[in-house]
């Protein structure tokens, strides 16, 4: 246990860029510059690199390269998918189905559509954090144009039953609902679990490089061949007219390389992370009382552990860990300035106290056993100390004004 150890366990927020990925990007900063839309060979080399990345992303999710649209990140991908469908298909229907535990990139987009006349159904989740496919099936109406359900949740890591939902969507489509589309936000799952867009039955899938050891500023939207989609913004004819703007060549190259590495090492990375994550959870359970693993019992991503420690404040744990060099996150405290408790944990019907005591540990492909051992020791000590510091529950306190 080194006091100066740096342990990054906030990989659900963002990840470090893998060395191979950085290396793949460097040539496109200064040597093979060139605008991928230019005719000359600088431009053509850039274009070739972009097309290689397109194949790599397509390979990761078993799509065709022509179905991949490069965008700036997960938020843009989600918006392009949802607003793109809303805009192109509003004539045939104005109903959208999503879940209560989506990322704000989906929820805020749906809310904005509500204020422009769309109807949105927010499907609830079980206490383990899983959507019920039957409820989605029942929610689909004649005017439903989009079902958008995330593949894995960013706070608790639960994996949603997309294949079943996809079957229901296809069933409805066969019964004539030709304008019904299925989108999934795979920002957390891409590169961590195997993805086959056809098996899932999705028409649209969002991902972003910085969640799987690629660079920030590069993401992709899978758009199934033949899908009519509006645009988020306007300009040149890049990306087959789906997304204008000079291509972020190094970013796209890095995204492709990160996808390639993730695909190659998928099961190896996932086994390692799952092993370490389970070890973390088992060790905490052995050494601490009154804790609960959120999303336990549901299928989960291999790298996420969201734990509620009774009687402590998540942010106080976070700061204590941070002071020892360990980065985690919490569903309790100010996220970007707002004091709202996480909508995801609320949707799980946790108690206020459980929400308050929640801490998310999220592992990356480079997380080591020594780091986890250190994190366990520091967490156990911090939680115990904070609990000792707390006034005994039986004593009664006067309400503050």
């Amino acid at each position: 246990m080194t006091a100066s150890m740096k342990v990054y366990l906030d990989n659900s927020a963002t990840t470090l860029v893998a060395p191979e990925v950085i290396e793949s990007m460097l040539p496109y900063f200064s040597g093979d510059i060139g605008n991928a839309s230019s005719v000359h060979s600088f431009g053509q080399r850039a274009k070739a690199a972009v097309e290689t990345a397109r194949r790599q992303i397509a390979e990761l999710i078993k799509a065709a390269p022509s179905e991949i649209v490069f965008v700036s990140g997960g938020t843009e991908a989600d918006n392009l998918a949802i607003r793109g469908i809303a805009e192109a298909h509003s004539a045939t229907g104005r109903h959208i189905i999503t879940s209560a535990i989506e990322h704000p990139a989906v929820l805020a987009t749906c809310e904005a559509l509500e204020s422009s006349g769309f109807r949105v159904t927010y499907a609830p989740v079980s206490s383990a954090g899983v959507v019920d496919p039957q409820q989605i099936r029942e929610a689909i109406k004649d005017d439903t144009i989009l079902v958008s359900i995330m593949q894995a949740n960013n706070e608790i890591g639960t994996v949603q039953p997309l294949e079943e939902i996809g079957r229901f969507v296809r069933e409805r489509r066969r019964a004539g609902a030709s304008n019904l589309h299925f989108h999934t936000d795979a920002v957390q799952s891409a590169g961590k679990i195997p993805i086959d867009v056809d098996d899932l039955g999705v028409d649209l899938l969002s991902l972003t490089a910085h969640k799987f050891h690629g660079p920030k500023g590069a993401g992709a939207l899978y758009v199934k061949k033949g899908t009519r989609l509006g645009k988020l913004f306007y300009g040149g004819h890049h990306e087959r007219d789906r997304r204008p703007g000079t291509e972020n060549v190094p970013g796209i190259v890095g995204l492709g390389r990160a996808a390639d590495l993730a695909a190659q090492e998928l099961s190896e990375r996932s086994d390692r992370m799952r092993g370490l994550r389970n070890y973390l959870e088992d060790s905490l359970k052995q050494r601490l009382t009154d804790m609960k693993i959120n999303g336990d019992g549901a299928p989960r991503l291999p790298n996420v552990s969201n734990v509620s420690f009774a009687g402590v404040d998540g942010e106080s744990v976070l700061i204590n860990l941070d002071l020892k060099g360990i980065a985690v996150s919490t569903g309790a405290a100010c996220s970007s300035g707002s004091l709202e408790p996480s909508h995801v944990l609320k949707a799980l019907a946790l108690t206020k106290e459980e929400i308050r005591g929640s801490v998310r540990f999220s592992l990356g492909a480079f997380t080591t056993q020594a780091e986890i051992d250190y994190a366990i020791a520091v967490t156990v000590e911090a939680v115990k100390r904070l609990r000792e510091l707390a006034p005994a529950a039986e004593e009664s306190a006067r309400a503050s004004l």
Partner: protein
Amino acid sequence: MYTKEVEDHLANPRNAGELIEPSGTGDVVNQVCNDRIRLTLHIVDGVITDAKFKASGCPPTVAAASVLTTLIIGQEIERAAQLSRNDVIAALVRLPPAKIHSAVLAIEALQGALDCINNREEVSGAKK
């Protein structure tokens, strides 16, 4: 996000715990966020000779309670009674705007403890 002072008081709380046979106890809870501070004091001849706190809640609440004890130990109760939330904030250098309530809670705990002493004034007066 937080000042070094907040972080230091969180990591190394001063005077954590609970005094035995306190001269006064203040125990207050913020109904919105459930943050709680419990402050126990020893008073001898109108002077706070010792103080200990227990606290639960967000980092500034623990830090405010901890720093408060360092502000009041050795003080006459009249002067301690004049401490305001701003003194607590100043001792922590700065609090995020959304966390001012932590300093408020600490001051309320202090006032609670001092009120409780005033109510027993006869007793401590008798000792004189």
